[in-house]
């Protein structure tokens, strides 16, 4: 059974919309962020995180989606 709601929105508070973000494997810490996703991953891995999650801070205009 699922054990928890996955909600990382609080983690991204204060980071500009559109920025790429690397998040720790446990999804509880931002390791790096910036405009270049490759640089963000390199910085995160440099902090000892082998498998950071890469995502992007959504713009207000793209938070609700209709695929």
């Amino acid at each position, binding site marked *: 059974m*699922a054990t928890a709601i996955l909600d990382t929105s609080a983690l991204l508070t204060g980071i500009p919309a559109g920025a790429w973000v690397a998040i720790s*494997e446990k999804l509880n810490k931002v390791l790096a962020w910036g405009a270049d*996703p*490759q640089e963000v991953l390199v910085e995160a891995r440099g902090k000892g995180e082998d498998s950071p999650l890469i*995502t*992007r801070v959504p713009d207000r205009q793209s938070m*609700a989606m209709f*695929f």
Partner: protein
Amino acid sequence: MPEISFPYRHIKVPPSAAHPDGQTLRNPKTVATLTASNGKTLRVFVLLDTGADACCFPLTYALLLGIDVLSLPTEMTGGIGSMANVTYYDTVQIDLGRGVAFTAKVAFMEGMNMHAMGLLGQDGFFSNFDVHFSHKSSTFTIMTP
């Protein structure tokens, strides 16, 4: 048949004219590890999307996986609000953890970059797994073969 449940992702959206009190979006979204044929991996968010014909990802993810996109076969595809999107295809492994993993021919497109997540669609994902969605309990359950 084993059943594996995953939590929905909740996203708080600030107030707008249409939703003065703001919104909490509840999506069947989880984390997946992509593995390219070169062995490189990338952890990303994925949304289970029954309306997507195939699994698709931001083109940036192909580049981060070290895939030579210019060597990939392409075709034009369409989506909500867009048409004639150049779409690159490659085969990757997708692992949701807890024993849910599969290999699929996936689409990479630039228009997905702004969303920074993948879509798990009909060909590759729903063709391999039956899934039960429960918005009320904020979980989705994958029946593994």
